[in-house]
C-alpha cells in the first residue's frame, strides 16, 4: 500500500518541478513531467480500486509526518486508503490524467503553458490529500488546497478582469462555507477531544442524545456539528445559497472546468458527507437539511440550465443540479448510491465539458450556442462523444433490459432510493428529482440540438467574424461565413474516447458493487442494507418515471429547437417575467451584491473615515495634542511678566492656603 505515497506525492513533485522550472525547462518538458506523473498515479490507482472491488485489499493508514501536537489536540499527516478513498482515487487520477493530456491540444497556443500544467498537478495533489485524509484537519488542508488551485486556474488568464473577479468570488464564497467547516471541526474537537475521523465516527452514536451550547442556543450536539460541516460542503459543492461562484468559474480554461468544476473538486462536499456518514446518521435534523438543500439545488440549477446560452454555463448549472442529486441521496441514507452517481457523473460530465471544449476549439473560441448549429457533420467525433455524454446524463436505459448508459444506473437509483425511503422530505426530494430529470433531459438535448443540428448560425459570432474577416452582411446567404470548423487534434480526441467508454459502460460495470455490495464498501461508509432492499422493491412506475420524463424532455427539446424553432421565442414572450427571473439566475448575484458586498465596502469606508480618523484619532492623539497646545497658550498667558499679576496670584494662593489650614 506504500504506492499511495507515490500516487499522492508524484503530482506535487511534478507541480513543483514544473512550476519552478517553468520557462527554464520549456513547454514540452514541463508538460511531459506533469502529464507523465499523472499517468503513473493513475496506473497505480486502478490496482488499488480493483483490489477493493475483489476484496483483496483492506483499509489501511499510511503515516507520513507528525503535524500538530498541542495539548490534547493533535493531528498528523497520514494517508488513509479504504474503499471510499479508492473510488475517489481512480476518479481523480483518471480524469486528471486525461485532462492533462487533453490540455496538450487545447492549450497548445497559450504562451503560459508550464504554469497551467503545474497548477493542474498541484490541484490533483491537493485533491488527493483531501480524499486520503484520516483526520478532519488534513481534509481541510486538501479542501483549501483545491480552493487555491481552483482560484489560480479560474484566474489563469489573469489579464481578463472577469476571470479575476470570478477567481476571487470562488475563493471568498468558498471561505464562507469554510467558516462552517472550521467551526464544525472546533466543535467536533470539543465534543470528542479528537479530529481523527475513525475515532469521531466510533464515538458519534454515544453523543447522539446530548445537547451543546452554540451561540447562546442549546442544540442537539450531533445536529449542529453536522450542519456546520455541511455548510462547508455546500460551499465547495456549490449548493443553493453558496452556488454563485460555480457558473462564474467557467471563466477558467475548459479543461479546468472539466477536472475541477465537474468531476472532482465540486464533489468534495459529497465525499465529505459520505466519509462522515456514520456521524451524519446520528443527526436526523442535519440529514433533513442535507436532503432539502440537495433537492432544492437540483431543481433550482436545472431551471437555470434551461435558459442559458453559454455552452459551458449550461453544463455548469447541470453540474450544480447533479450535485444536488448526490446530496439528497446521501441525505436519505444511500451513501453508496450517492458515491455511485459521483463516480459515473465524473466520467460523463468531464466528457461533456471536454466535448464542449472541443466544440469551442472548433468554433474559434465562441461559447454562445446561438452561434452554433449544424456542426454534426463538421466535427463528427466530437459529436459522438457529446452524444455519449448526453445519453449518459439524461439517463437513457431500459429497466427491463437491464442495460443503459452510466447515468441511467446511478440517477435512477437515486430517485428510487428517495422514493423508497418514504419520509416526507425524501418524497419531496423524489418529486424534485423527477422534475429535475425532465429539465436535465430538456437542457441537455437543447444543447445538442442547438450545437449540432439545424442550420449554421456561425457568422453572427464575433469570434467567427474575426476569423473569416467578414460581417454578416458581407456573408449574405452563407451563414457559415465560409468558416471551416476543424476537428480537434488527437490529444483531445483520445481523452474524449476514453471518457465516452466510461460514460457508456461505467454504470453497467460497477452497479453491482457500488449499489448492492455491502462488503465492497466495508466500514468506509454507512451502508444501509435495508434501504437498498427497499430501493429494489419500489413500484414499477417509479422505476420508469425517470425514463418517461427523459423522453418528455427529449420530445420538448426536439419540438422547440428542431421542429418549430419559433416556440422558444413565443414561450419567452408569454412568460416574460418567469423567464427573466430564471435566466437571471433567480437574482442571487444581485441580492448578494446588495446585502453583502456593497455594505462591506461602505462599512469599511465609514469605519475608516468616521471611526479611525473621525473619532479615535480626533479624540485620541490629535485631541491630546490639541489639549497640550491649548494648554501652552494658557500657560503662556499666566507667565505674563507683570509683577502685579504675579502678586495677585500669590495673594490669592496665600489666602487659600491659610483658609485651608484654619478650616
Amino acid at each position, binding site marked *: 500500500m506504500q504506492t499511495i505515497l507515490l500516487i499522492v506525492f508524484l503530482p506535487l513533485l511534478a507541480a513543483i518541478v514544473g512550476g519552478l522550472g517553468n520557462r527554464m525547462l520549456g513547454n514540452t518538458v514541463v508538460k511531459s513531467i506533469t502529464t507523465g506523473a499523472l499517468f503513473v498515479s493513475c496506473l497505480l490507482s486502478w490496482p488499488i480500486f480493483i483490489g477493493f472491488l475483489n476484496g483483496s485489499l483492506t483499509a489501511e493508514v499510511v503515516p507520513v509526518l507528525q503535524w500538530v501536537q498541542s495539548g490534547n489536540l493533535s493531528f498528523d499527516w497520514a494517508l488513509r486508503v479504504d474503499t471510499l478513498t479508492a473510488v475517489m482515487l481512480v476518479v481523480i487520477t483518471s480524469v486528471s490524467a486525461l485532462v492533462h493530456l487533453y490540455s496538450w491540444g487545447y492549450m497548445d497556443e497559450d504562451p503560459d503553458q508550464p504554469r497551467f500544467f503545474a497548477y493542474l498537478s498541484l490541484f490533483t495533489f491537493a485533491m488527493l490529500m483531501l480524499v486520503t485524509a484520516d483526520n478532519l484537519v488534513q481534509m481541510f488542508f486538501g479542501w483549501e488546497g483545491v480552493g487555491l488551485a481552483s482560484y489560480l486556474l479560474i484566474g489563469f488568464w*489573469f489579464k481578463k478582469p472577469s476571470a479575476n473577479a470570478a477567481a476571487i468570488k470562488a475563493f471568498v464564497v468558498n*471561505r464562507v462555507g469554510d467558516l462552517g467547516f472550521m*467551526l464544525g471541526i*472546533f466543535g467536533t474537537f470539543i465534543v470528542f477531544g479528537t479530529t481523527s475521523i475513525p475515532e469521531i465516527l466510533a464515538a458519534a452514536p454515544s453523543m447522539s442524545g446530548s445537547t451543546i451550547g452554540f451561540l447562546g442556543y442549546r442544540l442537539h450536539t450531533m445536529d449542529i456539528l453536522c450542519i456546520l460541516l455541511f455548510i462547508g460542503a455546500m460551499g465547495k459543492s456549490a449548493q443553493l445559497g453558496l452556488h454563485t461562484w460555480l457558473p462564474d468559474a467557467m471563466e477558467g480554461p475548459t479543461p479546468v472546468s472539466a477536472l475541477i468544476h465537474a468531476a472532482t473538486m465540486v464533489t468534495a462536499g459529497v465525499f465529505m458527507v459520505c466519509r462522515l456518514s456514520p456521524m451524519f446518521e446520528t443527526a436526523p435534523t442535519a440529514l433533513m437539511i442535507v436532503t432539502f438543500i440537495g433537492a432544492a439545488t437540483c431543481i433550482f440549477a436545472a431551471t437555470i440550465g434551461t435558459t442559458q446560452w453559454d455552452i459551458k454555463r449550461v453544463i455548469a448549472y447541470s453540474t450544480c443540479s447533479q450535485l444536488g442529486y448526490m446530496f439528497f441521496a446521501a441525505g436519505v441514507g444511500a451513501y453508496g448510491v450517492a458515491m455511485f452517481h459521483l463516480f459515473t457523473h465524473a466520467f460523463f460530465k468531464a466528457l461533456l465539458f471536454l466535448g464542449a471544449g472541443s466544440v469551442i476549439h472548433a468554433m474559434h473560441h465562441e461559447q454562445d450556442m446561438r452561434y452554433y448549429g449544424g456542426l454534426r457533420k463538421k466535427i463528427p467525433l466530437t459529436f459522438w462523444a457529446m452524444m455519449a455524454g448526453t445519453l449518459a446524463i439524461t439517463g437513457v436505459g431500459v429497466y427491463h433490459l437491464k442495460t443503459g448508459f452510466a447515468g441511467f444506473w446511478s440517477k435512477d437509483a437515486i430517485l428510487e432510493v428517495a422514493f423508497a425511503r418514504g419520509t416526507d422530505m425524501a418524497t419531496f426530494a423524489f418529486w424534485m428529482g423527477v422534475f429535475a430529470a425532465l429539465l436535465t433531459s430538456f437542457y441537455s438535448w437543447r444543447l445538442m440540438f442547438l450545437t449540432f443540428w439545424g442550420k449554421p448560425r456561425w457568422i453572427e459570432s464575433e469570434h467567427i467574424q474575426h476569423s473569416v474577416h467578414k460581417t454578416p452582411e458581407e456573408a449574405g446567404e452563407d451563414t457559415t461565413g465560409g468558416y471551416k470548423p476543424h476537428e480537434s487534434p488527437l490529444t483531445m480526441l483520445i481523452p474524449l474516447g476514453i471518457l465516452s467508454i466510461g460514460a457508456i459502460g461505467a454504470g453497467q460495470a460497477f452497479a453491482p458493487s457500488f449499489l448492492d455490495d455491502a462488503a465492497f464498501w466495508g466500514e468506509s461508509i454507512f451502508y444501509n442494507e435495508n434501504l437498498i432492499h427497499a430501493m429494489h422493491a419500489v413500484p414499477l412506475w417509479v422505476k420508469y418515471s425517470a425514463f418517461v420524463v427523459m423522453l418528455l424532455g427529449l420530445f420538448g427539446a426536439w419540438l422547440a429547437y428542431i421542429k418549430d424553432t419559433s416556440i422558444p421565442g413565443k414561450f419567452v414572450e408569454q412568460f416574460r417575467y418567469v423567464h427573466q427571473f430564471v435566466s437571471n439566475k433567480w437574482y442571487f448575484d444581485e441580492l448578494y451584491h446588495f446585502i453583502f458586498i456593497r455594505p462591506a465596502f461602505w462599512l469599511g469606508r465609514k469605519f475608516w473615515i468616521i471611526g*479611525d480618523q473621525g473619532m479615535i484619532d480626533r479624540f485620541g492623539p490629535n485631541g491630546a495634542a490639541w489639549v497640550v497646545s491649548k494648554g501652552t497658550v494658557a500657560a503662556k498667558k499666566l507667565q505674563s511678566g507683570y509683577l502685579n499679576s504675579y502678586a495677585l496670584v500669590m495673594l490669592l494662593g496665600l489666602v487659600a492656603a491659610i483658609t485651608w489650614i484654619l478650616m
Partner: protein
Amino acid sequence: MGGFPILSAMLAVPLFAALACLFVEAKMARTIALGATLVNLALGIVLWAGYDIGGAQWQFTERAEVFAGFSYALGIDGIALMLIVLSVFLMPICILASWESIQKRVGEYMAAFLFMEVLMIGVFAAQDMFLFYIFFEAGLIPMYLIIGIWGGDNRIYASYKFFLYTLLGSVLMLIAMLWMVNEAGTTYIPTLMQYDFAPEAQTWLWLAFFASFAVKMPMWPFHTWLPDAHVQAPTAGSVILAGVLLKLGGYGFIRFSLPMFPEASAQFVWLILGLSMVAVVVTSLIALVQHDMKKLIAYSSVAHMAIVTAGLFAFNVQGLEGAMIMMLSHGLVSGALFLCVGIIYDQLHTREIDRYGGLSINMPKYALFFLLFTMASIGLPGTSGFVAEFLSLAGVYKVSSFATFVLTTGIILGAAYMLYLYRRVAFGEQKNADAAAMKDLSVREWLMLGPIAAAVLWMGVYPESFLAPMRADIAALDARIARAAPEGDAKISAGEPLQEAANAMPGDHVSETHGAEGAH
C-alpha cells in the same frame, strides 16, 4: 553550553557593531551591520540548538546584582527563545532590505537598527522586571528615529503619534511595577510569575499593564498609530515593527498579565475578547477599502493581532500555543509582505495600489513569492498562518462559540482584502508603462524572501519544531492560570442516545419476491 554567556554575547555583538557603525562611512557600515546580524543569527541558531527541551524552565541564565535589588539577570524559556530566534532571523533581512534604499546617514541608520536588535533581544531575555522595562521602553527610541529621520513625507506626524501612544501606557506600567516590587520584595520575573497578588490589587495592576501592552499590540481602539507608522517607516522599519515590535504586547501578556494576575485576567476575558472581535471585523473591513499597500497590510496586522489576544485569553493550551505561533507566523508573513511592498516601492516610489497591475507578467518570481505570503496571511493550510489561526480559534472555541464565530469571519474578510490586493497588484493588464518595466527579483531580494518563504512553509507543515521548545512553558502557564479559567459555553450535557441510525429502515423487506437482485 558551559559557562559561555551567550545571551550577553548576543547583546554585545550588535551593541559594539552599532557603535562602530557611527564612525565609518556608508559602505563599511552596511558590511558591519550585515556581519553583526549574521553573527547574531548564528548565535541564535546555537541558542536554539543548545536549548534543552524538557530541561530547566529557565536556561542560559546569567545574573549579576547591580544595586538595590536591581540585577542584570538574563535567561530564557522556550517562549522567549522563539521570539529571540524570530528577531535575529529578521535582522539580517532588514539590513539587506536597506542595502540600496537607504542612502543618507547610513552609519546612523545601521546603528539604530543594531541598537534596536540589542533592545529586542534584551526584552525577551530580561529576567529582572526593571531591566525588562528599560529594554521595553528604550525600544521606542531607535524606532522613533528610524521613522522620524528615514521615513516618508509625513514622518514627523507618524513618529510623534507612535511615540505619544506607546509612551502613554508605559507610565502606568512603571507605577504598577514599582508597587509590585514593593509588595513582592523582588524584581526577579520568574519569582513574580509564581507570586499570588491579592485579587483586588490584581485588577488595577492588570489594567496598568494592559494600557501598555494593548497599545503595543496594538488592540482596537489603540491601533491608529500603526497604519501611520508603517506607511511612513522605511521598508526595513516596517518589517521590524510588524515582525518584532508588535510582538512585545503579546509577550507582555504572556509573561506578565496572565501568570502574575490570573484572576484579573479571567475577570477581563470579555474585554479582551470583545476588543478582539471588534478588531477583526472592523479593521478587516477597513483593510478592504485601502488604496495604500502598506496601510492595507498594517490594518491586516491589527486583525491578526486580535487573534493573538483572543488566543492568549482563551486560558487553554491550544489558545496559548496558537497565539504564540500566530506571533511568529505574523512576524514572518507580514514582514515578508512589507518586503514585497518595499521591493516594488524601491522601483516606482509609490505605494498606491492602482499604480501597479499585471506584475505577474514582468515579475513572475516576485508574483510567486507575493502569492505565497498572501496565502499565508489568509491562513491557507500548509502555511504558518493556518496553524496559528486554527490553534488560536480552537482554543477560543472552548471559551465561547460566539467569539469564535465572529473571529472566524476574519478568514472570509481576510481572503477578500488580500486577494483583492493581489489582484490589483499582480493580475490584470499592465496599465502603466513604468510598472510594466519593473525588473524581477534581484539576487539580494531573493536572499531576503527565500528564507522567509522556507520558514513559513516549514512552520505550516511541521510546526513541531517551533511548538516543542514552548510546550513545557505553555503547559506550566496553563496550569498556573487554570484555577481562574473561564467556563466555556459548550456545556455538553449527555442525553439518551438515539437507538438507531437516522435513516434506519425496517429490516427484511417483503420485497424479496420483487427480484431484489435485479438491476436496481
